[in-house]
């Protein structure tokens, strides 16, 4: 579709002295008219099939269901993670009221409708696949007088960790994600207004992937090291995914767990590493994410393959080697976002990854992986975990119910 572009340039080329005198506005109108005319022509020649594509901003993700949305939902372009601390006086009864309100807000906003008492209702009309996912920290479950799964606690201390309290822990997680950043911001504002009687913001992390429409849906994301990040994820909608992600125990049945870790990435140090070294550190090609023993992103890494002089093609210290377990239960579903904050001092970047993983059981699935990476992973040279939090993600709810009802009623 180069036609509109052509007509823009021809419109500019044909601009007259009068248009020049009248300023850019007239030229702009002329160009717009030219595009319109051109599109009209192509629409008629293309026949009835050439209906304008539905706007992505109008797309919605179902809110109600057995599972909360925002986990098996294809990751949206923008993700915001907010952790709240419950106020001292917030009781179990208060939690019921809070979750009823937040559920109602999320149910409306994700479907493109303003929340009740929404003071900016116009900002609610472009959901762009908005999802809101709620998670409960250990103290939330204690206040609810519920039984917490054994893994619902801070992760064991890892030698690589340099954790900051301002990016760690929390009682209530809000994961708000959409292809439109304004939808995310409005939703966060609305939800946080409705938590004020019950909780206060502990930390907030804003993340991004590629914008909607920039790459084909389903393309594995790239992090700010340039790496393809998330290739080995189980595919949503498969039995494999269901087994890795969904918990089936008690009030968490249909839910899962979320590990949210802020991983600082030292881009300046990474810059000093040549391309070969970068690929060796991960065990994958930067070009397409294929393992160093393969050609396609989704080729299985061959850890037995050796170079002519006998070294493993995928080094023992590489991330892909260290993250992989013989035990197939030790797998997780990653759904992270990049962050790129304002640099401090002389630095030119303050960047990294909001690592987010979902798994049925943190201790059984996530911790063994992280232990191996903690012991040896060449990527640790360029990364440092600076935040860490674990949440229980309750199941979804039906219309009329609320998220958390299996714990709170």
């Amino acid at each position, binding site marked *: 579709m180069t036609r509109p572009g052509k007509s823009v340039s021809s419109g500019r080329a044909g601009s007259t002295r009068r248009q020049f005198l009248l300023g850019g506005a007239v030229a702009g109108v002329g160009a717009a008219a030219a595009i319109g005319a051109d599109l009209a022509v192509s629409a008629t020649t293309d026949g009835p099939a050439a209906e304008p594509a539905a706007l992505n901003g109008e797309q919605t993700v179902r809110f109600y269901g057995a599972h909360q949305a925002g986990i098996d939902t294809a990751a949206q372009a923008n993700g915001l993670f907010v952790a709240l601390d419950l106020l001292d006086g917030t009781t179990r009864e*208060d939690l*019921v*009221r*809070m979750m*009823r*309100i937040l559920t*109602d807000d999320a149910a409306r906003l994700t479907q493109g409708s303003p929340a*009740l*008492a929404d*003071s900016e209702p116009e900002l609610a009309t472009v959901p762009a696949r908005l999802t809101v996912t709620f998670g409960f920290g250990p103290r939330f479950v204690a206040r609810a007088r519920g039984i917490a799964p054994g893994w619902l606690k801070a992760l064991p201390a890892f030698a690589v960790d340099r954790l900051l309290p301002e990016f760690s822990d929390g009682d209530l997680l809000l994961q708000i994600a959409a292809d439109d950043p304004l939808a995310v911001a409005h939703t966060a504002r609305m939800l946080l*207004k*409705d938590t*004020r*009687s*019950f909780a206060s913001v502990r930390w907030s992390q804003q993340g991004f992937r590629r914008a909607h429409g920039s790459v084909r849906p389903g393309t594995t994301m790239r992090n700010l090291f340039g790496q393809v990040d998330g290739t080995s994820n189980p595919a949503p909608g498969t039995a494999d995914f269901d087994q890795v992600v969904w918990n089936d125990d008690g009030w968490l049945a249909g839910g899962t767990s979320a590990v949210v870790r802020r991983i600082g990435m030292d881009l300046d140090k990474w810059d000093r590493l040549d391309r070969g070294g970068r690929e060796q550190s991960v065990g994958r090609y930067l070009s397409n994410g294929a393992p160093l023993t393969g050609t396609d992103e989704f080729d299985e890494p061959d850890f037995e393959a050796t170079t002519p002089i006998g070294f493993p093609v995928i080094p023992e210290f590489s991330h892909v080697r260290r993250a992989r377990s013989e035990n197939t239960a030790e797998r997780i579903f990653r759904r992270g976002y990049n962050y790129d904050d304002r640099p401090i001092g002389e630095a030119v970047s303050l960047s990294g990854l909001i690592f987010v993983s979902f798994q049925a059981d943190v201790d059984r699935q996530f911790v063994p992986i992280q232990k191996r990476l903690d012991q040896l992973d060449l990527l640790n040279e360029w990364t440092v975990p600076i935040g860490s939090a674990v949440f229980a993600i309750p199941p979804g709810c039906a219309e009329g119910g609320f998220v958390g009802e299996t714990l709170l009623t």
Partner: protein
Amino acid sequence: MNLLTLRQSKTQSKTQSNTGLRSGVVLAALALALAGCGTTAGASPDDAAGAAEPAGQNVTLTDGWVKAADSGMSAAFGELTNAGPDDVTVVSATTEASSMLELHETVENESGEMIMREIEGGFVIPAGDTLTLEPGGSHIMLMDLTDPLEAGEEVTFILTFADDSTFEFTAPVKDYSGANENYVGGDAEMDMGDADHGADSSTDSTGTDG
């Protein structure tokens, strides 16, 4: 035509064909005729509908909510829809959450200020139309809360219509920074947040705390 009906034609324009013109008329009417605010609620249009269905059967409320408050006053909002063939009039409201309720409208006084006051004759919901109760507009005023209204609570209201039929609905309580209902100097002056008014507007308010 009373002011509320006019307001409806302004905000619920889907059923009106000459919206633009009506809006102009509304503004003109508001500007010119506000001295006559006492006449805004005329005779109930459903007075004559003797054989009509009870009003309460045709009315529904959607998106109802109540502003959280520790004590004193609060307000309830939502969209009241009248699916029936006749206009209906809400003449009163009750709830256990407040010992006294009033039906309030927002109108402009002679000084051009927006003021809150009890509507005479009640809320008219035109046939097949919707009356929006919203901050800065008409609302159900809870004059004296019996207990704190906490976010997430559900409050049940019963509306009574001119034909004595009733309609019950439940609405959640929400924290909301606007819709600040305050008496000023003991007068029935309501500060609805976005309704800008000066200190002397209380002279135009009807006494509502009696």
